[in-house]
């Protein structure tokens, strides 16, 4: 019973917190540009507005176009339920390990790419082809970097990984490997969630878009689901970053005080990370599209080095 309660708690946290995180990044961007910026709650209002609007669907679109938002949303949420959020024992951890999580996200990306192509508009196809490049190159770097940490724990189950490193209370077994894997995962996060320097979520220039280009044909509740799913995906990546690489403070047992600390620490950590991403977005220009593979290649090399260091340092 308690386990089911945790599942719902984790689910509602992901759903409720993700628009806030998007709002935080936008706010940081605005403040650094000397703007006041929209309220932190603006993304919630946007979603509510979109859910209330009538969707317009292109006459050339097939069932994929209308099914994709639900598939993307569901797969992203499911991925979020496979990882520990505020308690290290994920109730659904029996359902899949880190590999399952990565491919659950890939399923969403796959349908997003299909949806971009489906309406047959000019920019959707362009966005889809670009997204396919980014996703393909980001995936190996992501798996390798988490694998470097998994080796420390001796398991690919995220709950086990997080639980074991949380118990170490700040100790890191192989610091160089840890840092390099973290750097790789951070780059992957920027790429997978469509942030600067890989993509620009704020642009109106269709020719430069990646993620937004695939959403151009969407409106109403479909757009709301897509936007929300993008927010949840961002939160999933931030959660992976904070919980896999710095899980200290997460609840390791189901006592009320541990849970309260776990939730509080989690919110502070992901918000802090969102601020960092906001700052990074303000510091860099977007990469030329053909440089993105180089960036993701370097993420892959970092992750690979992390693995090598892990073996050599363990001696």
């Amino acid at each position, binding site marked *: 019973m308690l386990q089911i309660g945790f599942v719902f708690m984790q689910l509602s946290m992901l759903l409720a917190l993700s628009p806030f995180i998007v709002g935080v990044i936008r706010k940081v*961007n605005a403040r*650094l*540009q*000397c*703007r006041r910026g929209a309220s932190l709650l603006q993304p919630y209002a946007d979603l509510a507005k979109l859910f209330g609007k009538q969707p317009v669907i292109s006459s050339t679109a097939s069932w994929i176009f209308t099914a994709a938002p639900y598939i993307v949303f569901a797969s992203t949420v499911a991925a979020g339920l496979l990882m520990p959020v505020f308690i290290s024992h994920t109730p659904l951890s029996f359902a899949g390990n880190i590999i399952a999580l990565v491919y659950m996200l890939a399923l969403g990306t796959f349908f997003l790419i299909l949806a971009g192509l489906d309406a047959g508009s*000019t920019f959707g196809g*362009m966005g889809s*082809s670009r997204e396919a490049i980014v996703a393909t190159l980001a995936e190996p770097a992501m798996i390798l970097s988490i694998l470097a940490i998994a080796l420390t724990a001796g398991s690919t189950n995220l709950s086990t990984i997080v639980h074991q490193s949380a118990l170490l209370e700040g100790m890191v077994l192989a610091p160089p490997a840890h840092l390099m894997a973290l750097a790789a995962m951070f780059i992957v996060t920027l790429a997978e969630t469509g942030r*600067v*320097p890989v993509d*620009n979520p*704020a*642009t*109106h*220039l*269709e*020719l*430069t878009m990646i993620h937004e280009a695939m959403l151009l044909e969407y409106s109403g509740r479909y757009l709301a689901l897509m936007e929300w799913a993008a927010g949840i995906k961002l939160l999933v990546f931030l959660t992976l970053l904070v919980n896999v690489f710095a899980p200290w403070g997460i609840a390791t047992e189901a006592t009320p005080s541990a849970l309260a600390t776990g939730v509080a620490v989690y919110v502070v950590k992901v918000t802090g990370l969102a601020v960092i991403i906001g700052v990074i*977005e*303000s*510091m*860099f*220009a*977007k*990469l*030329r*599209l*053909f*440089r993105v593979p180089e960036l993701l290649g370097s993420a892959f090399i970092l992750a690979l080095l992390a693995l090598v260091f892990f073996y050599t340092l363990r001696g």
Partner: protein
Amino acid sequence: MPDGQTAVARVQEAFPQTVMQVGSMHGVPMLRLHKQDVPAVARYIHTDPQVLGSLSLLWAVDHRPREARYELCYLFTLAERKDWLLLSSDLAGGEREFASITPVVHAAKWYEREIRDLFGLIPVGHPDMRRLVRHEHWPKGSHPLKKDFVWDQVLERVQGEYAYRKMHGDGVFEIPVGPIHAGVIESGHFRLSVAGEPILQLEVRHFWKHRGVEKLFEQQRLTEAVPLAERVSGDTSVGHSVAYCQAVETLLGMTVPPRARYLRSLFLELERLHNHIGDVGAICNDTAYALAHAHCGRLKEQLMQLNDRLTGSRFLRGVNRVGGVVLDLSGPQLSQVDAELHAIEREFVEIETILFANASLTERLENTGVLSEHTAWDHAVMGVVGRASGVDRDLRRDRPFAAYHECQPKVAVYRYGDVRARMRVRLDEVHDSIRLIHTLRRQLPTGPVVALSVDPPTPGQWAISAVEGWRGEILYVVMAGEEGRIHRCKVRDPSFVHWPAIQWAAVGNIVPDFPLINKSFNLSYAGNDL
């Protein structure tokens, strides 16, 4: 290198039989030719290493009802001393065909298509006979600049299709962009042919909102058309109005008082400042470097509010009039300008330091959208775009007007022709504009700001005027009609020259870089589509 007169002598020497008459109009040497001789002479002027004329303007005049003839005029700017040389030829007695010079002078290609559309005269031998201004929905025989075309008639709408240049091959796709865009952007259509991301070809198709500006000028009186000139291109109100006023003042034989000339230069530099600072920010924004965009936007806003306080218009409209300026600036206002510009320059230097230190930005701007010096010459490109591609031209130095012969503007020239060079020209010109404004203020003479009006000129007289606006050379040709009216007013914004050139700057780049290239040119749609 020869001045205008020596060039005339050389042409006469090379073509002893063909030159019918040598004259000059308000100091511009002018050769009258038979229409069939124009291509040969134009080719000589364009290619002779001693002359090297660059086509600056090509326009037509319908002389009816006074005389039943069309006149074609070709204005060349000579290489070294930037003197002008004018060729003119007549189409009399119902002739509608003239020999195209586009095969020998590439820069003529849009002018000749424009003349075909607006006058119904046919450039025989032109390699591209598709319509330019007159979109396919215009009915047959509607040529608005012919004198028998009634300016306020409503045209019926007909069907027709424009033939875009097609590219074929495995994996070659077309990306149509516009004329309706996602941002606050005017109507323009870009047809990109791509193989994957690299751009194989770009075709620009504009002229979606023809307003009939040149026809509207013909409905106005010489002294009353300044508001129309201010609205040719909204961001260049001062540039266009000064150019128009100067042409009319030459026609009326007016001498603009020194204080008015200084104030015109000052307003021109204020216009250059806010546009250049805004452009620097906009270029950064297209690389997703929003920080610089926000700060440049703030400075631009400060400058426009300064404009508003000085003149009551953020875009400096209503400043000029024929004979001088409408507004005089008081001592306190001028000190305010000085103080504000000092503050803005301090902040701008800080932004500049950040821009130069940002490697990720530099990486995006370098080698993007290169317009080679050769292509720039072929298209007779000038202004900011030209100076970034090694074209050392600036009317403020070459043919000083307003008060520029008394304040020595520095001309920023870069050779790389990429987005970064176009941004650096702007950065340099921002500093120089601020310096010029300080200098102008220090030297500002006292006295009246407007000359008294003189008798209207004889009908058929005309004058050319050239102003270096913030984009580049703005040219006006104004011909007087009966009773102080305008018979013909040819308007040339630099955008008309630069739009064809951007097609070449985009080739070989990747699709997501095109908006950046376009922004670094920042051309006017309205100034192009009169």
